[in-house]
């Protein structure tokens, strides 16, 4: 006799409900601090603490939501196809930006994490923080990090990056919209793409393309990074 696992319907329904409520709030009053990515987890965290539920119980019920990042990755094919004119025109610079950004992001995280004396698992978890979650989780897994933790760090990066990027843009005075969009797509992935769309349509499109290219680039660099870490830097 198989019992029903109540964690699945209960926590799935709660997560969905809280998300859509937070989203409605954000659409009515779009501010950086009330993004659904901040409000929904806080509400759920309060619920879980009040009900003395562990993360293990929660994730058992909502793991399928995390798995949906797979279909999201597949769905990225549609914007890439739709923006093929832009991609055809600017692919060399976009690829260059993604390469430079990926190398700098992996190297800076590794150097800073070493300098601050973080554990190897934490080092590996924070290295792919600059790319969108589906890719970051894959890279983190390949480097021996904790994929769950990487997802949280990626989101923290997105939130910080969207805020930092706006200030940086005012200071840098970039002339090309491609560079402005790439700044957000590379530095702050999903949250950055949303922010770039608020600045301009071309910025938003470029940011989306760079975000995907950066993910693919990090994945392509994974064997090299793993080799370097194992034989030279470990």
């Amino acid at each position: 006799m198989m019992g029903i696992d109540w964690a699945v319907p209960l926590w799935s329904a709660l997560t969905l409900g809280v998300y859509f409520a937070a989203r409605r709030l954000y659409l009515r009053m779009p501010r950086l601090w009330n993004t659904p990515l901040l409000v929904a987890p806080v509400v759920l965290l309060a619920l879980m603490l009040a009900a003395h539920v562990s993360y293990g119980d929660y994730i058992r019920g909502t793991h399928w939501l995390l798995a949906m990042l797979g279909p999201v990755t597949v769905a990225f094919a549609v914007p890439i196809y739709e923006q093929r004119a832009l991609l055809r025109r600017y692919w060399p610079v976009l690829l260059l930006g993604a390469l430079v950004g990926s190398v700098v992001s992996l190297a800076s995280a590794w150097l800073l994490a070493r300098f601050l004396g973080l554990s190897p698992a934490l080092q590996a978890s924070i290295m792919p923080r600059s790319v969108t979650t589906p890719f970051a989780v894959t890279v983190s897994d390949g480097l021996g990090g904790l994929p769950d933790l990487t997802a949280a760090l990626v989101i923290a990066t997105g939130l910080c990056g969207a805020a930092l990027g706006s200030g940086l843009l005012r200071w840098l005075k970039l002339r090309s919209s491609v560079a402005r969009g790439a700044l957000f797509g590379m530095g702050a992935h999903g949250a950055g793409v949303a922010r770039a769309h608020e600045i301009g349509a071309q910025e938003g499109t470029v940011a989306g393309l760079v975000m995907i290219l950066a993910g693919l680039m990090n994945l392509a660099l994974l064997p090299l990074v793993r080799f370097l870490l194992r034989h030279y830097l470990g």
Partner: protein
Amino acid sequence: MQKISRLARRSPVSSLFPNQGGKPDWRARWAACRRGAPFQLGLLVGSWYLLLLLARWLGVAQLTGVIGMLALWLALVHGWVRLEYVRAGANWLIAHMLLFFIPAVLVILDHRELLGWTGLKLFLIIVLGTLAVMLSTALSIEWCLRLARRRQAARRWRHIRQQHGGGAAQGNPPHEGGWQ
């Protein structure tokens, strides 16, 4: 992102019943259904799952998403799949990507150490690292485009000079246009 979500929300619940009163037009209903986000969502998730099973069998389960993306892109480029039959579903997934992150954020419940000293260190890494990434990416693209623009302008200038035999060559080089 908002524009995308508005497109996605136009799911054809009412257009599922195009000619009310008369005989149900099944072909029109089927066409409307295929253009709607829910049906496309099911199709996307379903085909992703089948691909996952295949990738797991081949031992490359981690790459399922990327393989699927390349396959869908190829299918769109070659016209095997029409854009309107995946667009609404794909846009819905991308617009609601934040939802799928939420379970991951709650991991801090299991990593209480992140609320203390370690968390501060990680925050420092994120801020400094992100600044470095943004600066290097934006400046490398900006300089690259500027260089290309300048080269192009110089080439055009030389061309004009040759054609007009130095007559037009008295003024300044053509002004570099805006960056659109």
